[in-house]
């Protein structure tokens, strides 16, 4: 038996979302089992089923450290500048 991961896209603009896993002896049955387990009520209009061994998995610690302050703008400076502008105008 092989383990597969199942991804569903709901109708509309949502991206594909991982919904769970299953075990199956081969790819055809994996697709069939995925339909039985995850789309009994047409929960998706598209489905990807991927063998777990074929997934490339990133290190969560690296992902967590990828963030940098200079890649964000929370608008605080802009707010201050606008306020300063308002005060000097009045």
């Amino acid at each position, binding site marked *: *038996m*092989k*383990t597969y991961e199942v991804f569903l896209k709901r109708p509309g603009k949502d991206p594909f979302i*991982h*919904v*769970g*896993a*299953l*075990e*199956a*002896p*081969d*790819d055809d*049955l994996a697709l069939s089992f995925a339909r*039985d*387990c995850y789309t*009994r009520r047409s929960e998706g209009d598209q489905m990807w089923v991927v063998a777990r061994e074929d997934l490339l*998995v990133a*290190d*969560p*610690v690296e992902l*967590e450290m990828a963030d940098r302050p200079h890649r964000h703008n929370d608008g605080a400076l802009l707010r201050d500048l606008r306020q300063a502008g308002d005060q000097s105008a009045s």
Partner: protein
Amino acid sequence: MRSWDSMEDFEAFLDDGGLVEPDDDMPDAYREAVFRFIELHANSEYMGGLTERDWIAKAPGLTNKLTALAKTQDEIGHAHLLYMVAADMGVKTRDEMTADLLAGRTTFHNVFHYRAYSWGDQIAIAYLVDAAALASQQAVFKNCSYGPYKRILRRIIAEEGFHMRNGEELLLKMAKGTTQQHELMQEGIDRWWWPSVQLFGPDTRPDDVLLRWHIKSERNEDLRDRFVQKMVPQLTAAGFTIPDPDLHQDPETGRWVSGEIDWDALKAAIAGRGPDSARRLNDARLAWDGAAWVRSALDEAAAVPA
């Protein structure tokens, strides 16, 4: 791989709303406790699915048979999802979990250790047991710290919602039915009221790790109390009685107060000494053995090189 230097760090992460994922280096005690909880849930869905299956042929009328069929698929589907999530924790394989369940080495919910004799019982299960199970699951979902379990619970809860609605529909139909139907329903309520109340378990102990580690989000006694407050008025309004002679309304708060709960009955059921435990487990073994040819066909298919 994420890891934590100490249990304090790990608990701070959980208190902060952190979600634990399968590849994380979680503390062994957490892994064990969460695994056992999910395994119990998976076993219960599986045993529940088998009971539901018995009613596909027996349910009155095509609509009820179709509903029984859909519910059976849902329950067995839930067991599939949960066994996958449990197996990914690396404590036991799926085969080991199945073997343990069938040998009576692991447990499943008390309510599946009783016999459903009539259609009235089956409705009482759909109405009372499903409502109790759903309330417990919602409380887990709300604050669940184990990512894969939380995500799978969202789906399970949505489907259990259908079941509960169906249970209430059937109950109200019986309430408006003939005297005979009313009596059949009352017998069902009489048989299933206490097991449903006991499903929530005894009062949560102050040192319950499931609460501390954000698997449970509410205490058993609070969930149980809410169930009683909701069910007593609904059943009474539909013209039924509750099989608890000591049940009364607190004159000051207006809240319903149950009589004494027989926790020995709960312990006996879970330990496999319930009124129907032996037959239920035997049924599960028969189902497992009966499907041996499917498993061997799958193994043969898996052995064929692609």
